[in-house]
């Protein structure tokens, strides 16, 4: 049994895969960017982050639901926790739960993967706790529907048609069900805000929802909502990384036009 793990390794194989040193360096540099800005944020230096329009849309949707006295539907996508979009969605969920708790508006969270159930429950509970209303937390708000994409969609559409939520928030990793849900949501007259980094579904959200959060904005919203300055620091760090990438893009194109190849080749991963 143990022998399964002990292999005859030719001594020529090095421990470190030198082909990937560029990935390691890039990762380290990116991490340093993040640490630097988190450090600055911790010291209390104010960091400017522009207002992300999607945030207002979320708050407006929650407000609408409160006014109409109807529930909020929060759909966290159909993928498991190994997709970081689902992680970001759970962070946003915690904050939406906090808003819902403050306004005492019911919240419904249908789930597609059983492993997400405990995480969603923790996030919602945490939100209610943060709003100072732990007793208002309804155990039935997080509902596992089904693992199967379209059975899940059917279940969610059923909730939309019969419980008539006034706000549909869809954040996470979505596939073909995006338009099925968004069109049904439109027909029930709900205000809809969606966000995903799944590029193939963005067109449908853009077309059918009132507001769409695109790609990286999903992560930015999750950082922004948590209101912790140190988490905002990571947004700055990722902005700096983007700036560096843009510089590399231009510089790389110029250098390669001048027939200088090493610069581009350095970034090449086997």
């Amino acid at each position, binding site marked *: 049994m143990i022998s399964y793990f002990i292999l005859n*390794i030719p001594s020529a*194989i090095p421990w470190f*895969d030198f082909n990937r040193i560029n990935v390691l360096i890039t990762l380290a540099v990116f991490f340093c960017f993040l640490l630097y800005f988190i450090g600055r944020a911790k010291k209390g230096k104010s960091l400017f982050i522009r207002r992300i329009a999607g945030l207002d849309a979320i708050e407006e949707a929650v407000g609408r639901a409160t006014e109409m006295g109807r529930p909020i539907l929060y759909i966290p996508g159909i993928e498991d926790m190994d997709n970081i979009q689902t992680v970001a969605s*759970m962070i946003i969920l915690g904050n939406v739960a906090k808003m819902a708790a403050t306004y005492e508006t019911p919240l419904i969270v249908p789930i597609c993967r059983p492993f997400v159930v405990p995480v969603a429950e923790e996030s919602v509970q945490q939100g209610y*706790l943060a709003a100072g209303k732990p007793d208002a937390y309804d155990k039935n708000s997080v509902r596992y529907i089904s693992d199967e*994409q379209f059975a899940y969609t059917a279940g969610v559409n059923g909730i939309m048609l019969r419980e008539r939520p006034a706000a549909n928030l869809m954040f996470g990793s979505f596939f073909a069900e995006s338009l099925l849900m968004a069109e049904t949501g439109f027909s029930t007259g709900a205000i809809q805000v969606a966000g995903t980094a799944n590029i193939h579904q963005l067109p*449908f959200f853009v*077309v059918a929802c009132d507001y769409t959060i695109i790609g990286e904005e999903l992560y930015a919203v999750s950082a922004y909502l948590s209101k912790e300055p140190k988490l905002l620091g990571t947004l700055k760090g990722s902005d700096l990384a*983007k700036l560096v990438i843009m510089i590399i893009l231009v510089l790389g194109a110029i250098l390669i036009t001048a027939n200088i190849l090493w610069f581009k080749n350095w970034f090449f991963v086997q």
Partner: protein
Amino acid sequence: MRREVPLVICFLLGALFIADYFISNPTFDRIAQTINQWAIIVISFAYVLGVANIARINTGVIKRREKDWVFKLVLLFGLLLMVILGIGWGIREGTVFYWVYMNAYYPMQATMFALLAFFIASAAFRAFRIRSWEAGLLAITAIAVMIGRVPVGEAVWKNFPNFTEWIMDAPQMAAKRAIMIGAALGAISTGLKVLTGLERTYLGGD
């Protein structure tokens, strides 16, 4: 204990797998692969939580005789039926489990998916109004690509397929690349926040 131990577990495993990417030692690789398989095992136990959640919520509705409670009975019946059939008689082709899958579950699933053909039309009708320059670009590109996808395109203009190809290759691809790069950075920074314990919403309160 309640907070720190999980954070340490998360950090150590994350570090192990990041290291695995850079380490080419086969023994190390094999250990990492084995632990990776363990993840699947851990998840499979979560199904008990899922099924328990379904049972709790639906029996609640039935007990209180809320609206549509009869349909919740149908739901629980379907669930029990599949579990009993599956455990009792197996799941191979030709079993009742398989037939229920093919004739109850599959047609429903396929029809839900097919509804998209209708929804895509109604969404297009409603949303592709040229209200602003952005909406105009959206609508015009959509129409152009639709024409390019069917043989009508070639009949209208010989180079139509090439034109749609260009849309796919230049602006379309550039946008996807930019979204991809941005989203990847966002995902990595969120991932690092989770590993280092800066972000711990998923673990809940104390």
